[in-house]
């Protein structure tokens, strides 16, 4: 009796494991089969430009908690620099925009699974990410920055005290950069901007590393904080991203950004959404117009 039941338990477990294993492997195969026309067995499940136009709605992944780039205001409306551009994109495409709230670590995933057509969530262009998704031309400059409390301003990451930790958000370039360049600094990782900010204000860690735009905004919006390291790592850009291989949509966005440059659209965007936070001093250093980065 006992022996028999042991077996059935094991059999059940193995069946379960097998089923899970099969679905896990299956998912990548399905994608490749569905979009057979792609080269190199790409596993994208994206919608082409025509399909988006036909459906009448474009799904755009934005942040919902990253003021002033992508956030939900008190009326429940999406607002911010990324969102301002997203609305224009929908308008020029002649479709409605369906905003999909995303977290930093989800952005690639959302494109790879076709949950969104475009990511406009302060997405920094990196070579590693470019292997997984296709970036359009950039619309903003960015570097990393570190903000800390006024009474203990961090100005360097060298000779770090191993008892102190730095807050990072999972899936951001700040996390990747610190792991690669300062592997000995303990990182306190959070999965959303809202919780990271809350924890930082509670004094969980001595510093918070993120895009410098974000930490500058934080220090300006909250009293008692200073950006001790305003620029860390390399100067990067932020660009829209589409699923790997979605060339029709990518080309359209590239043309769109180029033509928006003629009307200085992103300067208008900056003045509408970012000027309240940063003032006009940062306008020329942050905005990339027409997809062309000018040497700084």
């Amino acid at each position: 009796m006992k022996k028999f039941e042991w077996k059935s338990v094991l059999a059940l477990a193995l069946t379960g494991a097998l089923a899970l294993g099969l679905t896990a492997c299956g998912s990548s195969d399905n994608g490749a089969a569905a979009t057979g026309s792609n080269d190199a067995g790409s596993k994208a499940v994206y919608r082409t430009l025509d399909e988006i136009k036909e459906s009448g709605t474009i799904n755009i992944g934005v942040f919902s908690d990253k003021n002033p780039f992508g956030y939900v205001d008190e009326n429940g409306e999406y607002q911010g620099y990324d969102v301002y551009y997203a609305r224009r994109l929908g308008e020029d495409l002649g479709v409605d925009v369906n905003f999909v709230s995303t977290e930093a670590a989800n952005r690639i995933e959302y494109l790879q699974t076709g949950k969104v057509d475009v990511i406009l969530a302060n997405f920094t262009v990196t070579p590693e990410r470019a292997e997984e998704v296709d970036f359009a031309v950039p619309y903003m400059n960015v570097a990393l920055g570190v903000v800390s409390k006024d009474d203990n301003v961090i100005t360097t990451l060298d000779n770090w005290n191993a008892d102190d930790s730095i807050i990072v958000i999972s899936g951001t370039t700040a996390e990747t950069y610190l792991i690669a360049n300062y592997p000995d600094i303990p990182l306190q990782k959070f999965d959303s901007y809202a919780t990271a900010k809350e924890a930082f204000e509670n004094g969980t860690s001595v510093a918070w590393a993120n895009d410098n735009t974000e930490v500058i905004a934080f220090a300006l919006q909250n009293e008692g904080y200073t950006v001790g390291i305003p620029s860390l790592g390399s100067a990067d850009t932020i660009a829209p991203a589409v699923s790997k291989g979605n060339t029709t949509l990518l080309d359209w966005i590239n043309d769109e950004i180029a033509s928006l440059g003629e009307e200085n659209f992103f300067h208008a965007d900056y003045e509408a959404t970012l000027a309240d936070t940063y003032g006009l001093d940062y306008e020329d250093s942050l905005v990339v117009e027409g997809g062309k980065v000018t040497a700084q």
Partner: protein
Amino acid sequence: MNWEFIGKYLPMYEKAALLTVKIGVIGILFAILLGLVCAAIQYYKVPVLRWIVAVYVELSRNTPLLVQLFFIYYGFPKIGIRMSAEVCGVVGLAFLGGSYMAEAFRSGLEAVEPIQNESAISLGMNSGQVLRYVILPQAMSTSIPAFVANIIFLLKETSVFSAISLMDLMFTAKDLIGLYYKTTESLFLLVVFYLLILLPVSIVGSLVERRMRYAGFGD
């Protein structure tokens, strides 16, 4: 499936699994203690305390662990109570688990028919002996299935710890996906590690259940 990636990040999962098990075990132990105390208070209908327990049980069972953790980790520091994320995890798990354990034990105690108590007394046992030899063994036997289910449930609930920045299995998987975009491998390891933790619990649990099935008649 990229096996090189799996080999490289296996140690990270091992660390996360240890953390998950550590917080899970400590939290569940406290939950069992809390549950025993609460069940006893309710069983013996201790005045005042039983109302406090009733409120606690309803509050704890009808709010998600995620909400409880947010309160403990992000809310408490505002009123001056500071705890590390690990302690918050243990406290949250004990708070949630305590009520489930209390209900499991209470149902076990209440399932023992009054006639058992009366018969034991008529056989000349004192109240301590009745509890020790008649009530508790049967109550335990009845509550074991719910008890085992609770342990598995609580271990699985640790997957929301990422909200308070604990690098448990779930957060490790999410973090690796965000860092290196190896979704399939990360999720595969996640499932494997959860099974490694939970399958033994489940198997041992069902063995214990079978051996303890002596309450009531028959079987």
